[in-house]
């Protein structure tokens, strides 16, 4: 019969538990640590939410003012203007690409000649500067002939050294100049007076031949040029209108803001006066009386002159529509240069959208009402799908995260496109194909990548990768790659490459784990059926590990999206939705990111301002994204473990 009564074990009995109190202490210690961590996490979330939630109502008030003072009205018209400008720049790019396509040889020759001139100029700079200084100084006595001679000798020596390629990086390469031409150029520079900075005759000659060639290839394009010019000037009326009305509405807004500040100040003073000591009160009351010096703004009256110009807007708008139609008719059907043609096609593709946008403007202007309230839903949707993130301007701060989100997304995609093949490939190689010695070498080496601080990677990105990519991209033989030559040294691709590098260890380690956890019995069964090594790997092992590998990729993605330092340093930080007309080449455009914007702007914004709160909302969004990714990854991993029994 078991003893069911819960009598304590008599003390002194060998079964009596000892050391109970220390056990409890240890438990409390670790339990306390865990609890503290959770409490801190909750506090962080609460803090984020508290700072962020206030954003939407405040932003809404700002938008309301934006509307009342008429800024919104002007922006409607300005939108057309911006679109028109972009269209014009497309045409210009097409034109210059076409013109330059025939002059590539001349441009390269001139560039190389300039490079030589610059190289020699830099090499002789110290002596040259000294000479200029001694001869130029009016106050001092004229230099002694010995000094002059000494400096000239120094100049000649440096020049000779440079000509033989002994200084610095050596002589710049000149594949498009013949030896004699190069020699001629050097001789001309050598013969030049040390004090002169005139371009050598040969360089001028090249310049002239380039100009002539340009003129020559521009000649058949005269009609095209005229059409472009006509198109660009068709917006001048609107341009004037917008700039004039924007001055008016800006003044209205500023007056309203000033008045608002004064009213708030008086309110603060009033609150203070209520509790103040009597001797201070009189002073405070005087302040209160003087606090508000401006009249409240009469928005309707202020807006009246702007609204009165709607007929003029109509005219300007019609002129612009006409300009678009006209230019569309006059454009050449196609251009022989591939790049120029691409720009032309992009213009054509954008024409209907532009026409539609111009067409509805008058309706929008006429239908615009200052007194329609801005809803909170509109505020939120404007934040999420807004195409602009404009801050710190005197016009109106606009917070739309779409460009940042797209930047983050594209950089992550590039990073994953690089990290997945390398990470998963290395995992497969290490686990399945490498011998034990290679394994011992490869694994720690890849995992070591993780130890590189991201700011150091950022250096590498700026100093090495960006420059290298840009240099490589100017090679003639690579010009078929879309986006080459790269315009911006810092762009999404460089950032994506570095982030990919950072994600490789995560993806590698976790996929290797996943592959390693696939029971050997599967591989053995496959071998016993006569499968080759690769068949076993790709048809049995990888499919069996696939959810683990996916989880690894997701965790890598989480790492990439949350990474800040590298993107801030390397992504180029242009807040703009990339121009997707470049196709794959889009990846060579700069972009800004969700993380980068917080790091860049949080230090500069006034505490508690709308801008400050907007950054917190971005932070919350990031938090949610990363949380969702990690949660999915955890689920996948769990499923993976279950499927392995």
């Amino acid at each position, binding site marked *: 019969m078991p003893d069911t009564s819960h009598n304590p074990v008599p003390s002194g009995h060998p079964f009596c538990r000892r050391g109970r109190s220390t056990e409890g202490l240890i438990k409390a210690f670790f339990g306390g640590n865990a609890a503290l961590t959770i409490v801190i996490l909750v506090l962080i979330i609460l803090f984020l939410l508290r700072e962020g939630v206030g954003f939407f109502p405040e932003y809404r008030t700002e938008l309301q003012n934006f509307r009342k003072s008429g800024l919104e009205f002007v922006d409607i018209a300005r939108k057309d203007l911006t679109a028109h400008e972009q269209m014009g720049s497309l045409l210009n790019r097409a034109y210059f690409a076409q013109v330059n396509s025939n002059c590539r040889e001349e441009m390269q020759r001139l560039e190389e000649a300039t490079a030589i001139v610059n190289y020699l100029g830099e090499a002789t700079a110290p002596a040259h500067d000294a000479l200029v200084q001694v001869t130029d100084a009016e106050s001092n006595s004229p230099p002694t002939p010995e000094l002059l001679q000494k400096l000239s000798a120094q100049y000649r020596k440096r020049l000779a050294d440079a000509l033989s390629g002994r200084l610095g990086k050596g002589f710049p390469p000149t594949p498009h100049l013949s030896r004699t031409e190069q020699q001629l150029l050097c001789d001309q520079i050598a013969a030049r007076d040390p004090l002169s900075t005139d371009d050598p005759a040969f360089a001028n000659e090249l310049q002239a031949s380039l100009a002539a060639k340009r003129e020559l290839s521009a000649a058949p394009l005269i009609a095209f040029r005229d059409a472009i010019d006509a198109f660009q000037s068709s917006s001048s009326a609107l341009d004037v209108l917008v700039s004039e009305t924007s001055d008016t509405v800006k003044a209205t807004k500023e007056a309203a803001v000033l008045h608002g500040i004064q009213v708030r100040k008086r309110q603060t003073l009033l609150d203070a006066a209520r509790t103040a000591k009597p001797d201070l009160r009189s002073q405070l009351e005087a302040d209160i009386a003087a606090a508000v010096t401006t009249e409240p703004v009469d928005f309707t009256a202020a807006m009246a002159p702007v609204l009165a110009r709607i007929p003029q807007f109509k005219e300007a708008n019609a002129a612009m529509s006409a300009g678009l139609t006209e230019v569309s008719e006059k454009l050449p059907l196609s251009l022989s240069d591939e790049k120029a043609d691409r720009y032309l096609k992009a213009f054509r593709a954008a024409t209907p959208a532009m026409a539609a946008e111009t067409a509805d403007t008058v309706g929008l202007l006429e239908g615009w009402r200052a007194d329609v309230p801005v809803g909170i839903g509109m505020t939120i949707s404007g934040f999420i799908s807004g195409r602009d993130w404009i801050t710190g301007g005197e016009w109106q701060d606009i917070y739309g995260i779409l460009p940042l989100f797209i930047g983050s997304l594209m950089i992550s995609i590039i990073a994953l496109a690089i990290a997945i093949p390398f990470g998963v490939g290395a995992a497969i190689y290490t686990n399945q194909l490498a011998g*034990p010695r290679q394994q011992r070498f490869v694994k720690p080496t890849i995992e070591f990548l993780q130890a590189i601080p991201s700011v150091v990677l950022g250096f590498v990105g700026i100093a090495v990768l960006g420059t290298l990519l840009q240099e490589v991209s100017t090679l003639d033989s690579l010009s078929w790659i879309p986006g080459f030559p790269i315009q911006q040294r810092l762009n999404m691709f460089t950032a994506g490459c570095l982030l990919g590098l950072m994600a490789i260890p995560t993806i590698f380690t976790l996929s290797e784990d996943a592959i390693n956890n696939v*029971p050997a*019995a*599967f*591989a*053995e*069964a*496959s*071998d*016993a*059926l*006569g*499968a*080759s090594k690769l*068949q076993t790997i790709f*048809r*049995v092992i990888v*499919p*069996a590990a696939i959810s683990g590998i996916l989880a690894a990729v997701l965790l890598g993605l989480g790492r990439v999206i949350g990474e800040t330092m590298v993107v801030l340093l390397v992504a180029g930080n242009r807040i703009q939705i990339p121009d997707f007309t470049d196709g794959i080449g889009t990846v060579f455009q700069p972009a800004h990111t969700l993380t980068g914007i917080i790091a860049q702007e949080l230090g500069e914004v006034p505490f508690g301002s709308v801008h400050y709160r907007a950054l917190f909302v971005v932070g919350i969004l990031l938090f949610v994204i990363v949380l969702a990714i990690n949660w999915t990854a955890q689920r996948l991993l769990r499923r993976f473990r279950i*499927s*392995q*029994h």
Partner: protein
Amino acid sequence: MVSDSVQPAIPAIEIENLRFSYGTKEVIHGVSLSIPANQITAFIGPSGCGKSTLLRCLNRINDRIPGAAITGGSIRIGGIDISRPDLDLQVLRRRVGMVFQKWNPFPKSIYDNIAYGLRIHGETNRKALDEKVEHSLRVVALWDDVKDRLKTSAFGLSGGQQQRLCIARTIAAKPDIILLDEPCSALDPLSTLKVEELLLELRNDYTIVIVTHNLAQASRCSDQTALFYLGELIEYGNTSQMFQAPREKRTEDYITGAFG
């Protein structure tokens, strides 16, 4: 017990003076054995005597273990020494299939498990695959149980069914020889019986080598029996003869349970 085992014994596998080591540890010390075609040969012996090792030499699956190697002698299958280093292992393993002690279907559907062996050998024709899958499943008497859930995971089957699925997977690849390493050691008596019946049926088309700890099983369904002890062959011969009138004293001790 199989009584009509007096067919002409064409040797399918000829092992001659085979030595095998894991690294520096030799575990098979010169075994010679000739395994007849279209018969069932059982390997018995106490644990650790090298039965599995010898069996795993026959399709060179031991090559997976680093350091494991045949250090002497030869194994001839179809007239060629399969211990040669330049042998095409994939072809050898197609001809010599293997079923493992612990059933190990792939984490795929029932259908894909069987189709796998066919696909890796280049069969892509959908109809041919269907036919062969069905045939293999019928041979192992699993077809009726699973024909409605071919696309579901193989892990949804019972242990005995999974083991039969593994046998079906092996025979789908059309080997000449099937090696089985204690295929029934983790099965209940009823499933064991089914597998044994299956083996007796397969005997007509395949040469079968089975490792077993179950002496009753060896006597029930094998034609030839080989008894090993500490890496050496003690006795080899006709099963009925060996169980009724063992030549060696140690054999008698082992089958009467005096050691092992």
